[in-house]
């Protein structure tokens, strides 16, 4: 491999095969020839577009958490629940483990993820590394698989159908906010955040 410096190289995370990095065209995906894992993906979103996406997601997230998710009609009475209603209910019903899981995967982790990304991108816009850049990038890596908002949308759907057998169930605004959030999360999931390491120069750290 001679004189190539390590930054021009790319190592497959799944099988350790070494590749020489090559620029990707629009929509191109580089896959590993040995194990067929995805190596790198080109995405057309610039820092500004990403930041806009994150801010939108944050707003939708606030709405998804403030508004009731489902409303139940029972003999003229209406009762609805928000995400925090769910968390508190599980805590009180002796299922604290579940309560903590719900709070972490549906509230704290997604919120942290969006706030951290927003912070990093805000500074990246000016071509600078945000204060705490390295630590936040590492934290984002570990936070990766522990957000489950999209599973919750499907869960709400199942809950509505189940409750429908006994009550009048009305999907409330929160569920639509969650659906929109899922869409935004799916778009964001396609973005390789590791590129921020290269995009933002180190000297400004």
């Amino acid at each position: 491999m001679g004189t190539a410096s390590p930054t021009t190289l790319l190592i497959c995370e799944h099988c350790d095969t070494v590749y020489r990095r090559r620029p990707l065209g629009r929509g191109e995906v580089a896959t590993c020839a040995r194990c067929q894992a995805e190596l790198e993906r080109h995405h057309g979103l610039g820092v500004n577009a990403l930041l806009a996406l994150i801010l939108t997601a944050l707003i939708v997230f606030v709405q998804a958490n403030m508004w009731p998710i489902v409303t139940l009609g029972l003999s003229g009475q209406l009762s609805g629940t928000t995400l925090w209603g769910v968390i508190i209910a599980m805590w009180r019903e002796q299922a604290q483990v579940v309560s903590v899981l719900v709070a972490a995967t549906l509230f704290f982790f997604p919120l942290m993820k969006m706030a951290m990304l927003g912070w990093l991108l805000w500074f990246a816009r000016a071509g600078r590394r945000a204060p705490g850049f390295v630590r936040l990038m590492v934290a984002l890596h570990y936070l990766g698989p522990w957000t489950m908002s999209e599973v919750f949308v499907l869960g709400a759907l199942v809950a509505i159908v189940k409750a429908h057998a006994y009550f009048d169930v009305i999907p409330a605004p929160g569920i639509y906010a969650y659906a929109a959030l899922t869409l935004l999360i799916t778009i964001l999931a396609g973005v390789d955040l590791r590129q921020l390491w290269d995009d933002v120069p180190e000297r400004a750290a």
Partner: protein
Amino acid sequence: MSALPRAAELGLIACAVCGQVCRAVPGDPRLDGDSVGDAMACPRCGSTLRRRKPQSYARTWALLIAAFIMYIPANVLPIMRTASLNDIDDNTIISGVVELWVKGSPDLAIIVFTASIVVPMLKFLALGTLLVSSWRGSGWARVQRAKLYRLVELIGYWSMLDVFVVALLTALVRFSVLSLVEPLPGVIFFGLTVVLTMLAAMSFDPRLIWDGKDTDD
């Protein structure tokens, strides 16, 4: 196949956290992950550099077995009680699926069945197969096994579906006088199963699949 060099052969190492390619001393035992100590740190993000995830076999086995032990009460114990004026009904995962099927939404029943039964079972079988075949250095169906691992990683957390359903129903129905929904211990074990299988999948190192004898490569 010499056209596809691997990192260790070139004296390189990839940072597991940030992906940075670093030069490493070939054969340095501290990089192999099993000896604890002052191993090299990634110059970019500061994480410890390892050739492989530390103690991958032992950790994955331990987490997988723990998950399986949790999975038994998760299925046997009821996960939710629905009580109304005239009857009390304790639901297990399976009886919940059956009820959903009978009450007229077979498509959702299939989704719940897939998420809470098929996905965890697939994870036990898949991770077990990966562990055994990689341990033996088997060259059998390597590309397919690599794909299987990525599938396990991708679909793992969808098993949380039923836990969220129980939680939502509890919050929704608990305030009404006529009926009550209560979570039962099964749901706690189920939540733990999901978390443990996710941790097991994360501690397995897919590079082990490619580490054995290079017979058919």
